[in-house]
């Protein structure tokens, strides 16, 4: 398996001493991590370890939860996204997100993909919009399946198609980072394989961060892996290293299936 030189990729996101609180609950403690560009980074760990919470910090989705509070710095391209001058709306256009359960809007396939470009004003006219939609659907590796039914409701597709539609929808806003929160947990193995293939292809252009429950998936798709446990970032490094020689006892126990 050809292993790209991830150390050479520049740092896209860099988090310093990040703390997250949900009310009184200290969900993320002192997390410091550098996430590279043009690579797939996987967050793994047992349920409730904070990996999804941390992911949602990266595009400030935690803002939509009233009780959540984030401390520390997260820099994307050197800019602190928690700076007061940052508009989360502009940030989220740059940092796209795909959710655990496919959540297409109750609109047509076309409208689902066109939604982002429309609100961000990326297309000057209908022809441009058509072009963006087609390119995004191709990018989401679903164009061939839906090109004849762009007007059909997005909710009528199969689970795997819905998730790829959601990925296409996310890349339509031309993001630089793609966050994926357990994107395959609601899918069957065939659909999972299709989505994993897609992630592999997306790596060339985006910094992809994926949260996953499945260690096999992390090993298959990612170049770098971070292991979270009870809100702590226990270990972070090249995926091969983590799985072959875990440096921490907790990581080893998790990988060998004794905690989870």
């Amino acid at each position, binding site marked *: 398996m*050809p292993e790209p030189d991830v150390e050479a990729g520049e740092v896209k996101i860099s988090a310093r001493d990040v703390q997250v609180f949900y009310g009184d609950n200290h969900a993320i403690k002192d997390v410091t991590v550098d996430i590279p560009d043009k690579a797939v980074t996987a967050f793994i760990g047992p349920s409730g370890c904070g990996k999804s919470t941390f992911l949602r910090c990266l595009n400030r989705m935690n803002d939509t939860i009233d009780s959540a509070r984030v401390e520390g710095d997260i820099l*994307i391209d050197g*800019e602190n996204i928690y*700076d007061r001058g940052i508009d989360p709306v502009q940030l989220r256009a740059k940092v796209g997100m795909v959710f655990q359960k496919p959540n297409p809007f109750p609109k047509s396939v076309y409208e689902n993909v066109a939604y982002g470009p429309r609100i961000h004003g990326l297309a000057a006219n209908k022809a441009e919009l058509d072009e963006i939609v087609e390119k995004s659907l191709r990018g989401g590796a679903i164009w061939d399946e839906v090109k004849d039914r762009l007007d059909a409701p997005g909710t009528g597709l199969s689970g795997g198609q819905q998730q790829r539609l959601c990925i296409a929808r996310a890349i339509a806003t031309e993001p630089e980072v793609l966050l994926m929160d357990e994107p395959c947990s609601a899918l069957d193995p065939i659909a999972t394989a299709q989505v994993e293939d897609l992630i592999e*292809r997306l790596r060339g252009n985006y910094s992809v961060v994926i949260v996953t429950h499945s260690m096999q998936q992390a090993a298959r798709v990612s170049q770098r892996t971070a292991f979270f446990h009870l809100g702590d970032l226990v270990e972070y490094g090249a995926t091969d290293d983590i799985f072959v020689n875990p440096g921490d006892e907790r990581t080893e126990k998790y990988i060998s299936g004794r905690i989870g």
Partner: protein
Amino acid sequence: MSAASVDAPLDPPPRPKSSLLAPSDRTRRRRAAERRFRACGVAAISVGVLFLAVLAAAIIRSGAPAFTRTVVDVTITLSREQFERAEGQLLKTAAYEAVLIGALQEMLEEREERAPFDAASLRRILGKTGGSLREFFRANEDRIGRPVEFTLPASSRVDGYMNGRVSRDSLTDSRFLKAADLDLVDALAGAGIIHSEFNWPFITGADSGVDNPGGAGIGAAVVGSFFMMLVVLALSLPIGVAASIYLEEFAPRNWFTDLIEVNISNLAAVPSIVFGILGLAVFIQFFHLPQSAPLVGGLVLTLMTLPTIIISTRASLKAVPPSIRDAALALGASKTQAVFHHVLPLAMPGILTGTIIGLAQALGETAPLLLIGMVGFVARGYPDGFVAGFTDPNSAMPAQIYTWASRADPGFYEKAWGGIIVLLIFLLSMNIVAIVLRRVFERRW
């Protein structure tokens, strides 16, 4: 993975490197749109709350005067000689009035106040008082020769003057009140003879004639409402609970059950006036139940309230987890036993809360009562006894308020607002009881 890497790489999307810290024009515009939208929401809420505030202010400002009345305190010592002279005269009441005027003048002089005074102006201020004085002394001859303290209610226009509703400027001389009379009122007020006090007769009294707004009270209508609520409670609680238990616990899925369900949800939205038509046609015209009776009003309101009570009772029954039923059934209880011994007691607080809220709704309902004749001059007095309370013609609070609101004399408007305060106090207390019940017995499964 190796297969995927063979695929042609995607076109790199165009990336205009822009700083997140410098919002684009478009972002600025979108933020402005966001602020406008949010402001619309705030405005909508504010308008709603403002309406509530205006409504509350209107009720309190206009209704508060109904709770005070203006009275004249006067002590009269009627000698035996005066009594006999008065009884010997042709115009007996006028003689008593003269005595009253004498007593008032004496009191004014004692306090060094002075005002023009004659029987006509006294009548305009106090109304026809001679008759009641005479009645008192004829009934209590032993009080003759000793000082007796009288509290005489002033006319509604004097009442208005004391409350600031009628001012010297706005007053045009009429046979009800002349501007000169106000000097007399001022003098009496200066001497402390005329003053305001809490209007107990409004709380305890019955409706009065169209020309006497001052004497109107809501007490009889409160009693009418009370008897109606007794009927509603006694019928709607057992019937509502029984119907809910059937639908929630026993009913099979068939056309009959569906029919009942459809009927209940539609009845909940039928206009209340239609229930009034039902009451008129069925209870009064067909079954010949008495008109204007709280019993009929109660029956109509029961039918109207039942859907509300059934809907809330079913929600309470649904909230009891199935594990409770399973546990009882597993111990060998029959289905009926499981429901009546376990599910129903657990759902009871919720059922009671729903019932109180349903009753509060029924208490404020007016339209159907108009059609079954609980309006007009029906609340003339208290019923003679418990059974008569259900069958004697009476009004109810909201219908009494409507009666006052539709009378020509604006003096009744104040009574209508005052009646609304009384009605709202009842509603508020019922809702507070419901909230407390819910808080105390709230159970989370």
